[in-house]
């Protein structure tokens, strides 16, 4: 009888405690996955900027992907976030962050908030991130999480063509969606000495990242690396 009572008590405790333990172990699991992601996908591929590595290790990527994709959040691939859009592969986010050489006093403009993950990584490093999304449902979802987690991120749902003039000029502009032309207002809102990173090519095939540098009257471009912004599963 004594044993039966003890077993029953253990079962009851187990039933109540299980969700809490499970939640904690999932969080630990994500943290472990994140640290492995930084080591194997990012550092091993040559990303050396300590700000970037720290930010990538800190931002919980799984919060920026749809619920049904969370188990893939730290895998080495882009993921669909709906509306034909993707959250970039972790390495690409790290690469685009490092290439603009972010510093704590930077003000950065991002065109194409998407999931909000790139903005979150930047917000860990720079003074302020201004991010614009044209697809309203995506922008609203990203705004909800970014404004909860960060006070140095401003989200606007609008056409990125015009940039965000009242907060310019910017030290860096990160464009996350490929465009067939670079809007003149963005060039204007780039500081002298500022840089812009932008993917060139169709959204569903191999693209080339391009770095645009503004120095006085001279504006030059440099092709960087081929990247892929392709979903690995169809969006729901």
């Amino acid at each position, binding site marked *: 009888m004594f044993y039966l009572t003890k077993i029953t008590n253990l079962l009851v405790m187990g039933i109540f405690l299980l969700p809490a333990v499970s939640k904690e172990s999932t969080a630990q699991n994500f943290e472990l996955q994140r640290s492995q992601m930084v080591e194997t996908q990012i550092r091993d591929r040559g990303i050396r900027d300590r700000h970037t590595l720290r930010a990538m290790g800190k931002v919980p990527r799984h919060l920026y992907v749809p619920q049904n994709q969370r188990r893939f959040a730290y895998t080495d691939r882009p993921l669909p976030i709906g509306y034909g859009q993707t959250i970039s592969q972790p390495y690409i986010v790290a690469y685009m962050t490092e290439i603009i050489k972010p510093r704590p006093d930077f003000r950065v403009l991002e065109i194409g908030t998407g999931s909000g993950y790139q903005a979150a990584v930047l917000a860990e490093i720079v003074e302020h991130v201004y991010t614009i999304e044209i697809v309203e449902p995506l922008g609203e979802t990203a705004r909800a999480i970014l404004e909860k987690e960060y006070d140095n991120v401003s989200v606007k749902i609008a056409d990125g*063509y015009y940039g965000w003039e009242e907060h310019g000029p910017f030290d860096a502009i990160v464009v996350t969606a490929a465009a067939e*032309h*670079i809007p003149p207002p963005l*060039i204007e809102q780039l500081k002298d000495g500022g840089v812009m990173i932008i993917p060139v*090519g*169709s959204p569903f095939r*191999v693209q080339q990242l391009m770095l*645009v540098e503004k120095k006085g009257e001279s*504006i030059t471009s440099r092709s960087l690396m081929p990247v892929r912004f392709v979903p690995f599963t169809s969006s729901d």
Partner: protein
Amino acid sequence: MRSPSFYFSKENRVILSLGMLSAAIIAFQLVLMQVISIMQWYHFAYMIISIAMLGFGAAGTALALMRKKLLSAASWLVPLLMCLSGIFMIFSVWLARLQVFQFDVYVLFVERSQFGILAANYLIFFLPFFFGALAIGILLTKNAGNIGKFYFANLIGSGIGGVLLVFLLSTMFAIEALPVAAMLAVLAAIMGFDRQRHKGLQSGVIVLGMIVLIFAIRVPGEVPLSQYKALSRSLLLPDARVVHSKPDIHGRVDVVASDAMRYAPALSFTFTGRVPVKKNVYTNGEFYGVIPHFDTTVTNIHDFTTEALPYIMGARDTVLLLNASTGTALAHALQRGAAKVQAITGVHAVKELMENEFAEESSFLFHDKRVQVLYQDSRQFLFSAKDNSYDAIILPRMEAFGGSAGLNALVEDYTLTIEAFSQMWNKLSDDGVIAVTSWMDYPPRTTLKIAATLVQALDNQGVTDPRDHMVAVRSWGTITFVVQKSPLDQAVAGKVRSFCREMLFDPVILPGFDPRNETLYNQLEDDSFFSYLDKIIVEKDPDFFESYSFYVAPATDDKPYFGRFLKTSEIQQQLKEYDDLPFLELGYLIVWITLAQGAFLAIVLIIIPLFRLRSKSRSKTATIFYFGALGLGYMFVEIIFIQRFILYFGHPMYAIAAVISTMMIASGIGSYFSGRFKLAHKVSAVSTLIVSLLILLYAVSLTPLLMHTINLSLAVKVFIAFVLLSVPAFFMGMPFPSAIRVLDANRQDQIPWAWGINGSLSVIATALATLIAVEMGFRVVMFFAMILYLVAFAVALINFARQKPS
């Protein structure tokens, strides 16, 4: 004059209903090809042809396995199957539009479940063909003694169905034409019933058929687009809406408006103005152009792109614009001072939109006195144009932005062949130029192929050093090649240099300029692109095309696949290097998948069930070889004719309709006549020999004959095409029914095998012929077709000669 009872005699009613069903099936096939091109990409047209053939093959097998039962129930079963075929035409398209059955071609290679969805689509579309084919099969088998007449109705009906659909698709959307095809099948069913014996069933079919048809007509629904199509993505923009839609034989044309749509491809960093908002035009959901604003008071945005190069090099009084799309290049030419511009546009609906609905918005650009807009294929125009004094011939920017992931790999483009560029060269004035612009691609493919094609065309004109005539300028996103008829001089080179400085562009090919020794505005990741160009232009290295990872050798009229870059021998290496092959060469891989999937299903649904049949006779080798050769050979010849007549008529849909319809009708007549000869085994041998000799004759003479008559009026060309197609098709209609008669008299149990093997090989023939054409050219496909008919001839000669005549 015959009495009405003759026309409505039982046999004639059945023959008429067979003809109507055949028309319905071919019409449905063409509708489906159009619908699938809108939902996905046109490559799936091959899949539809293969599914149709699969339906016929499987029906043959079903007939073989349940011959007695099916034939005894023919009087009510055949009309019922016809009705089911019509109803499933509607039902299959409705099912395919459901979310659960929608597949995405872009994720096909990374999500295995997509193959399952693709296979489900195969089966959904298979059903209407299967039901229809089974009805046809039962009728042909039941009337084997009179097969010529019935086969004639089958083929004539198919021919008429093809022609009917071409007319319908010019005036209505594919989804609206679907009920017409279904209605033909239901009407065939109603006509096929024996009213005395099955009045109740006939009434039931009438009611059921009408309910489904009324539903389809009243609720046509939308054709869902892949989320990766340009139109789908555009409609996500703020306030984006379709403001106009129009049917066209090339597919659906949509005009979309949104305040966030701007068009300035690879605009110079120096442009500081506002990029205007413009409406976008899409054909079958893919970007086609924008509605241009023709306003001479503002700077044309194209002056800030590499496309301005031909106008920078010199004044252009007379300009020819090939594939002029919506006329953005037309507005540019006029603003650059052209006095006479001819714009060739290949989509009639777009021309009509620009002349009517959007005339005012484009400031009546298409009505300008200096402009002549012609609805014609560009290559056709080059054949027919008399003018030899164009100051500029300008081609549209190549490839979708950043490429189309190889989706154009199998498009026959006769405007981008060596022969086409040679024709352009001969139409230039003394200082005239040809200009071609392309997006920079990675790894370089399109850009290198353009250079290679231009170099070869110049070589054919006796230009030994292409650098004396060629200029290329690159921005951050595009590259424009210009070849000038007269040798370049320092003055022109100077103009190009200052244009580049002003726009922050970089010369790539220019006298006295080596990009590797200069500070560039737009730096590339490495210099290999310049080395490759050197190998093509300077060294003319013959080994380069062999050694380069992609297929960048120039396209020719025999292999007009400019968009094909994949080398099958390099697939392993490229997968290792890029880890992303499908996204480089999607179109080509889709045809391989179609071939593999079709072959698999043909084996499962046709061949394996045939093994259940107990065979009394000895070897089936002769039957398999004869009917297999016919299955492949007929389709090979049909594909070659379609490809050749695309160039002749200038439009794929016209070529497809003309070839399929004429061949069906002529083959139908041939099969009818074959029944008049008593010695069927001789007909089966002699007709195959005649066909192989005709193929040999056509291999030598067809192309020159078409080239010599290409400038004649359409009516004359249609007549010539009819004659050229119907002669071989007439004889090609004879071997199959003749050999069936031989088997009927000698080895009846092998008839199912004949149907099955013929059907199975027809399933894979379309994709196989296309792959051979892409790899080796049309002539090789023709050679294979000739060999196949010779194989059939040899079998007939050796084997059938020993049989009873019929």
